[in-house]
């Protein structure tokens, strides 16, 4: 098994940041892969498959994150997560955003 690690940098651009709903989508995508996936901001690194850790990362709009995957499907995983963030979490399962009740 190839254990190559892939890494990429992303920026959270949706106004609500990586709060509950986007975090859930992120975690769901991450869990679809076998690789170990971590996400880091400037001071912490967390498990991308744990919603607790991802939400506690509290990535607000404008936060830069590093996604790192290691495992057989590391490259695909990183690309999928990057795609999700770059689409501003929009194209995956069309569910209305939870916190739109709060006007911005």
């Amino acid at each position, binding site marked *: 098994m190839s254990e190559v690690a892939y890494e990429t940098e992303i920026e959270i651009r949706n106004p609500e940041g990586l*709060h509950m709903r986007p975090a*859930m989508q992120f*975690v769901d995508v991450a869990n679809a892969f076998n690789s170990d996936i971590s996400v880091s901001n400037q001071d912490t690194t967390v498990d991308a498959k*744990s919603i607790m850790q991802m*939400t506690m990362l509290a990535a*607000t709009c404008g936060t830069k994150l590093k996604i790192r995957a290691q495992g057989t499907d590391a490259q695909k995983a990183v690309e999928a997560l990057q795609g999700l963030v770059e689409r501003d979490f929009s194209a995956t399962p069309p569910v209305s955003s*939870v916190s*739109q*009740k709060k006007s911005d």
Partner: protein
Amino acid sequence: MEIRKGIAVSPGIGIAKPMVIDSREYHIPRRSIMISQRTAEIGRVRKAFAQAIHELDHIESAKSIEKSDIRDIFVVHMRFLRDKTFRKRITDFVNKELVTGEYAVSVILREIASHFAGIDDPYISERAADIYDIEKRLIKHLLGRVEDNVEHLREEVVVLSHDLTPTQTASFNKTFVKGFATEKGGRTSHAAIVARSLGIPAVVALGNMPSEIHPDGLIIVDGNRGVVIIDPDSETLQQYQQLARQMTQSASALNELRDLPAETRDGVKIDLLGNIEFPNEATHVLDRGGDGIGLYRTEFLYLYSGKEPTEEDHYHAYAEAIRTMKDKPVVIRTMDLGADKVPETNFHPNETNPALGLRSIRYCLQNLPLFKTQLRAILRASVLGNVRVMFPLITNLPELRQAKMILRDVMEDMDDDAIPYNPDMRVGIMIETPSSALTAGLLAQESDFFSIGSNDLIQYTLAVDRANEHVSTLFSPAEPAVLRLLRGVVQDAHKARIGLSVCGEIASDPEFIMLLLGMGVRTLSLAAPMIPEIKKIIRSVSIEECGDLTRKVATLDSSRQIKNVLRDAATNISSETY
């Protein structure tokens, strides 16, 4: 006004506002668990997670929830409940801190919530509410319907609940909990025993209580008659307030007796010891003027944890009670359960007759590791005070010898490990079967003391199960057969010059005290709240009167006659002043 009838399990009258322990506002006190409970506690946490997920599945699929944004909230909660690192953080906390699952849930979830709340972004800080919601759901599954904040009461209440565990009951603060009433339960449930020990009036088995109980209303718990009155009218309330006042007055008069000796009018000193179940009850025994602990039941160690207790679990429980009692005697009875009640046993014999089956000392003699663990803990604790050990349900001499041989084995092991213990610890037995009563003379040669367990002795002598309502009226300590056995045991103990106490219910029955003294009993062990009343009787009588009564009773041939004579005698003393 609504009157409910149940079973009176602990005497007294309590009048206060209701506290229904079924609310959704949780405050979880920190409560420690024993090391041996860790696995079970983590199992509880896992189960709560599974139940919460199951519940959310239902909510999610329920048609009534059409608004997708509400559904989305639950979908996110579900992700949390399925997050293994999240769950692990809680189970790790249980493991490391040795606290209950509910406490771990509340600490960890509040940590996470406050983390969110502290982030300067409205989208994220608002998520704290989600975390609180997950917390509530988990706690609800961990605690069932019962809320645990009775420890932190600030006002007097009557606790109303579906059912109570002994641990919950034991945590009641008597200053504020004026009584309790449960829908379920029975006379012999552990909650009932603990209520009697704490002296909290209690009524159980009330059936379904009204779903709406007015929080500002009043509840009367009449633990004498087994009645609970919801929102009493003013006349009823006045009657009960007066009754409660009278009872308090006589109770405080009895408390004045605390520091007076339990001595008959003709100067014979009687030792009044307490029966306890939980180590913290030792304080109640001292508060009521007890001279020691005559029966420390150790079954709760096995029942509460749902797991076989470790040596440390045993040791800590014993050490607490012994330290409280200082140099006063503490008689620890070894495990007295049936095979069906011992946790983690694969062998549950399907017994048609459990009272005559594999239980108590018999079970211990067949399960030596379990027995030795307890004996080792008792021996270790024996250096902390005046500790004695007592074997239950001994029926013949070989059984006693076998139990003592195992005790010596454990002592030798401890010698090898250089662990200190008291080599002269006194070893006694319960006399609670006709066979041990009839051979008391033999058993006395190899015992340091006897303790008569009247409840089992009566059941086995009369062949009556008093929990069976069809025959329970046949259960009577005043049966001539029972009294003959009692008299014989007392005489055999005296002849052999060994200690003798009575620790069954007759030791706290005002009508039987004179008879027991007349037979020659000089030590009684009873529930702490009864000590003052029994002391009062002792101080009112002379041994001579008691002897006369005993001789008179010996000439009577039926339980009914004997009861009448005993009742008349008891009425005469209580009407006189002491």
